[in-house]
């Protein structure tokens, strides 16, 4: 199975790419890559299916965003038609530029949604929980308990509903939820009590970080204060470099606290997720995009990323290297297609 961290790296890169450009050519390439990965991922479908398919959502969001933007934004030179000014808010020029800008934003939202549906499909819940950093093991434990108890709670809810229905109870007003909700709440709290007793009886205790709590708290306060100070330097006085440096140092302190607390947390793993060549390929594809788009390399026209349809719509520029780097996001499609575990799931399904 593909390592969750590889998927995490791929997801972050995809989100960064979608945030960094409004160039329709690059956006189309990103969405095509996502469509390839999504098709491969959903054919395996180990996770819960999304309530709406990404394609359907994108087809819905793009025209809505375009129309919404055109109706409320009257900027741009290419006037398609006019709505009488007497109509408040939407009255004025309807421009091609506003339509285009709205559609591009719709594509970005659709891309975000598609990227996350891929993650939901390829990673089982236990792998997603395992992505929680080790320092947050109590939180991960709460999530595990909650996820485990959800089916039980749903069954209990159905049983309560049936029992109340036999007594002639019908839900007509909001107050009619009381006989359904209270047994659910009290029954759940009783189970929590039993679970707490069982956990304590089996020797569950807090972590080893209690002695270092004050150190961690001090580092967190220092880190957050540095982030705030750095940000204010950038915002209020325009001191870009010192501000960015302080922000990075502060963020580093917060991340350092989490990493240090994580190292002190002992844990055992039942299912070992090994790093494979496939995982390295996925990350290499993502890294390729980040390097080409962000690293100060010569011969790359990054201006083409910053496309805007305003004030007059112009054809977008295209840099072959920038465009080719996007294909790195499609690497998981090849990896999934070649994944024997997922193939075996498909044959069982």
């Amino acid at each position, binding site marked *: 199975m593909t390592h969750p961290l590889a998927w995490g790296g791929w997801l972050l890169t995809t989100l960064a790419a979608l*945030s*960094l450009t409004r160039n329709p050519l690059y956006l189309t390439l990103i969405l095509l890559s996502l469509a390839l990965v999504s098709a491969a991922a959903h054919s395996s479908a180990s996770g819960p299916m999304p309530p709406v398919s990404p394609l359907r959502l994108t087809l819905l969001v793009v025209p809505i965003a375009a129309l919404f933007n055109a109706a*409320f934004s009257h900027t741009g030179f290419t006037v398609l038609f006019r709505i009488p000014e007497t109509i408040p808010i939407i009255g004025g020029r309807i421009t091609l530029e506003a339509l285009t800008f709205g559609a591009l934003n719709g594509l970005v939202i659709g891309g975000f949604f598609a990227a996350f549906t891929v993650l939901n499909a390829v990673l089982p819940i236990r792998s997603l929980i395992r992505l929680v950093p080790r320092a947050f093991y109590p*939180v991960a434990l709460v999530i595990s308990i909650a*996820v485990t108890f*959800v089916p039980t709670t749903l069954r209990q809810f159905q049983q309560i509903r049936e029992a109340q229905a036999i007594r002639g109870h019908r839900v007509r007003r909001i107050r009619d939820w009381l006989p359904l909700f209270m047994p659910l709440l009290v029954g759940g709290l009783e189970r929590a009590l039993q679970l*707490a007793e069982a*956990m304590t009886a089996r020797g569950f205790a807090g972590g080893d970080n209690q002695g270092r709590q004050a150190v961690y708290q001090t580092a967190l306060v220092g880190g957050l204060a540095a982030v705030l100070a750095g940000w204010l330097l950038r915002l209020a006085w325009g001191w870009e470099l010192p501000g960015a440096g302080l922000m990075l140092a502060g963020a580093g302190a917060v991340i350092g606290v989490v990493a240090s607390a994580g190292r002190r947390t002992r844990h055992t793993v039942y299912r070992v997720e090994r790093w494979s060549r496939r995982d390295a390929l996925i990350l290499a594809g993502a890294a390729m995009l980040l390097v080409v788009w962000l690293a100060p390399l010569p011969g790359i026209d990054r201006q083409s990323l910053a496309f805007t349809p305003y004030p007059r719509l112009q054809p977008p520029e295209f840099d072959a290297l920038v465009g080719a780097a996007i294909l790195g996001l499609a690497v998981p499609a090849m990896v999934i297609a070649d994944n024997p575990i997922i193939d075996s799931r498909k044959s069982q399904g």
Partner: protein
Amino acid sequence: MQRQRLLSIAIYGLTSVIGGLAFIYPFLLPSIEAVGMGQAHSNDAPLLLTALVSLCFVALLFETQGQALGAKLIALLGVLVAINSVLRFVETAVPGPGGYSPIFFLIILVGYVYGGRMGFLMGALTLIVSALITGTVGPWLPYQMFTAGWIGLSAPLCHPVVRLFDGEGRRAEIVTLAIFAALWGLVYGAIMNLWFWPFFTSDPGQSWTPGIGIVEGVQRYATFYLVTSLQWDFMRSAGNVLLMLAVGAPAIRALRRFRRRFDFAYRPAPEPMPTGVVPDVAAGPRRAQ
């Protein structure tokens, strides 16, 4: 202990200030234009906003879970989060009107009865667990978790108001919580719009564009909110009030009763007594309520 408490307050304060600033970053950007940095920052705004909100969330989560989330609280929180996730699951299957969601009133009650720490964790974890089981993990999730966490974290602020009216266990308590829930119904929507607002429109009257003052930025957002979101959020707000009035009082009684029941401690078993010695019956049972 006093020092840890002060550090805790400092962490809550700093994360709230940074998180608040991150959410209103689009309003601040036009002013930055005045010092010549607006255009440069307008491109990195969504990324910076996500990074800062995530960083604050990590710090706040670490702090809230840090002080000994023992077996009792973990079990309690796990089951309460499961119940609330089921409520969201039911809502997904049978959607309510507008932005109505039955999850917020329990987050508020848990924060109010068990304290801000539990409230924060309840809010944040409800959102992530329900997203996991309904397959709706998305870019909105960190913002939802952070904002829902804020709801639970701020719920104990109702205590002084309730005490002012000497209303614990009375109608005034539920009315106070209902007003609090109504306000958060609207504020939650207003905050949650901000993560996509910079992406969505470019209308000079309603959208985020560099080059104007803070006041106009707020006016634009207010117009955008009134046109697109108020009706939706009003349903959430009204739903919160109705649920609080209908279910709040018995739910608070149940949560308080279980808070007392959870207040037990385990003591090591006494050493085996030599034969012929009469046991001290006043020592009490091993499990003390």
